[in-house]
């Protein structure tokens, strides 16, 4: 019995170590890019732990574009932003907030269409067992979970809301922390680690569809006005043909059977070319909060 216990302890410790190491090492893994590949950066906006989906999507893109495609995944928006601003990525799927901050250095390729419109909202959520809290203002002195300091829905919007309530966002909550992914904000609020959180409404609704167990543990108390959905952008010096090629591919997705299936997995209707003005709302908020 002794030995069994001990081996089990070792096993469990090993698996624990492994997961700890993986968490620490992920952002450091070198990207294996071939010469001439299309380099696409992905943020943890929504795609998390969906390797099989990404493989399918990449294969589909490669077929459409007739060239190899490499996805770059990073743990935070900032890292992806640094890469594309430094010209190390050709394209990236990012959030509206970093887009408005670096609008001059990026070119808008496409905007997702969700429920028929290129918009989404930020949701303010609290644990489902908290039946009292009805607004952000009631979370004073509580613990709050943001997704990413460069996220619109998961950071900028709640900051803006607090500022417009006349509160100092830095001191309003007793503690706040970042989970670096929207899905994890839902988890953090669901288990009660945070008393409230800000999450991408599109992610919350998609999770409600595929992982209702996660969203059931939370309750949405506030929905923001519409914001331009997470844009697909290109580095500013991207050749026009390449940009057109990718935009075409994205816009054509609903027409293609495999593309349509991939869109269904993303819960999206498709992509539109979109106008930078879509994100003016975000830009105004950023200005108000003083982060531009």
């Amino acid at each position, binding site marked *: 019995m*002794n030995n069994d216990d001990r081996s089990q*302890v070792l096993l469990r*410790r090993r698996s*624990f170590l492994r997961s700890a190491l993986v*968490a620490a090492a992920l952002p450091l893994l070198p990207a294996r890019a071939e010469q001439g590949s299309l380099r696409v950066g992905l943020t943890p906006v929504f795609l998390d732990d969906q390797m099989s989906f990404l493989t399918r999507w990449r294969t589909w893109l490669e077929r459409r574009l007739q060239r190899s495609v490499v996805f770059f995944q990073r743990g935070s928006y900032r890292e992806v932003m640094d890469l594309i601003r430094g010209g190390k990525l050709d394209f990236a799927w990012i959030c509206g907030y970093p887009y408005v901050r670096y609008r001059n250095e990026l070119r808008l390729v496409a905007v997702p269409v969700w429920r028929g419109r290129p918009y989404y909202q930020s949701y303010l959520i609290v644990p489902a067992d908290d039946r009292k809290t009805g607004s952000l203002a009631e979370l004073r002195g509580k613990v709050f979970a943001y997704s990413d300091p460069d996220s619109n829905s998961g950071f900028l919007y709640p900051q803006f809301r607090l500022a417009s309530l006349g509160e100092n966002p830095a001191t309003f909550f007793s503690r706040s922390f970042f989970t670096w992914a929207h899905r994890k904000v839902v988890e*953090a609020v669901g*288990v009660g680690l945070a*008393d409230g959180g800000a999450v991408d409404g599109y992610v919350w609704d998609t999770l409600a569809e595929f992982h209702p167990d996660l969203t059931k543990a939370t309750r949405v108390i506030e929905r923001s006005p519409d914001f331009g959905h997470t844009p697909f952008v290109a580095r500013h010096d991207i050749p026009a043909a390449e940009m057109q090629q990718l935009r075409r591919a994205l816009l054509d997705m609903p027409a293609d059977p495999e593309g349509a299936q991939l869109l269904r997995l993303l819960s999206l209707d498709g992509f539109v070319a979109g106008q930078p003005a879509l994100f003016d709302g975000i830009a105004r908020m950023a200005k108000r909060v003083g982060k531009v």
Partner: protein
Amino acid sequence: MIALDDLSLRWKIPLRVMVAVLGTALAVTAALVTREYDEMRQNLESHAKSLARVLANTLVSPVLHDDIWRAYEILQSARDPAAIAPELQADVVMVTDAEFRVFVSSRPRDFPIGASPSRQGGDYARLRAALMDGKPTEQRVIEPADSVHYFVMSPLVADGVALGHVILGYSKISFVPRFIGLVGRAAVVTLLVLLLILPVSWYFARKTGEPLLALADAMRQVPGELGSARLPDLPHSRDEIGQLGDAFRRMVGELREKQELEEQMIASQRLAAVGRLSAGIAHEINNPLGGMLTAITTYRRHGNGDPLALETFSLLERGLDQIRNTVAALLVETKAKDRAFAPTDIDDLLILVDAEAGARAVTLQVAGRPQAPLPLPATLLRQIVLNLLLNAVAAADRGGKVRVGFEAKNGLLRLSVCNDGAHIPDAQMAHLFEPFASSREKGHGLGLWVVYQIVKQLNGGLTVDSEPGNTTFRIEIPYDQA
């Protein structure tokens, strides 16, 4: 307890052995369970310590960077929701800062960020007191008194500065199912062992008690049923019980001898009384008898010869003669002068008995015929042997055998007469030598009485052994060798 004391050894010994076996089994089981429990505790403790150490090392960076979510994820990855050994699962894992406020915990609802675990009260309040007591940079196991929890604390140290603690809280209650399982398994093993051992122990315990029981059974028959005491059943071993059995056998043997002696003594006292009585009667009868016979003789010699009277006197004389013979037989008297018993007397005796023996086809055998005369009165000895021989021939089966044995040595004549007929019943044996005690229709029943009287007068002894197919009369008479 009196009822227990009175219980037969048949049950007492096995029951005591059972109690001893059960007690041993229980003690061994308890010892094993205690040992297992200790091991389980140690196991858990070492597991918890190493887990706490690993967590403390891993959590330094998230704590330094204030990355609550990363810290939470690390705590979660340390949990195994489908653990095989649930008691190895910490009830709560928490990271506290230097002021003992929760940085993050695996149960955020109970231990929310920024709150003090003492808020939970009880064990956690005492935990804080215990934490504050010791050195903040040392790993410790803290078990507050009367606590249902115990804690393993590992310090979070960066550059020698204690940032806070990683605290693993274990509920002792989660031990209970495992402990019950442990006790259950031990009980099953003990029961199996008992199933094997108990019947064997019972058998040996019964075996140990059996000789004692046999002894007790035999003792219950003493002194009432000495004859039927089952001595062969007694233990024959050399241990204490065997010695007791031997002693008991000796005791019964001596008791039997004593009983026989008493019976013999009573018989000879009775015979002596009968002898005195018959001697007295014989004297009282002999005196008038002599007068009457003399009177008849005188009348014959000097009477008038009346034929009726003569006939009457003749009838009287025959009757009186018969009385005299009977009285003479009752009152055996040694004649002062008699010749010595010679070997030829034996031939005479055989001739005398021969007719009777021939009639019943009984074979006579003589052993140890004396070569020289013995200085014993021939008439009396002849009467003894004749009476015994006649009895023996009569008692022998048709076509059977009668043996006469003589042995004269060291001034003692040993005489034995033996027949192979039916044995003498016990009831008759007690009165064998008394006058008129004969069971036979023939004879007056004075034969053995006469033998007895003569042997007594010759200062001899007489014994009878009778069993089916062999009845032996033995007589010993001392004689003067000079």
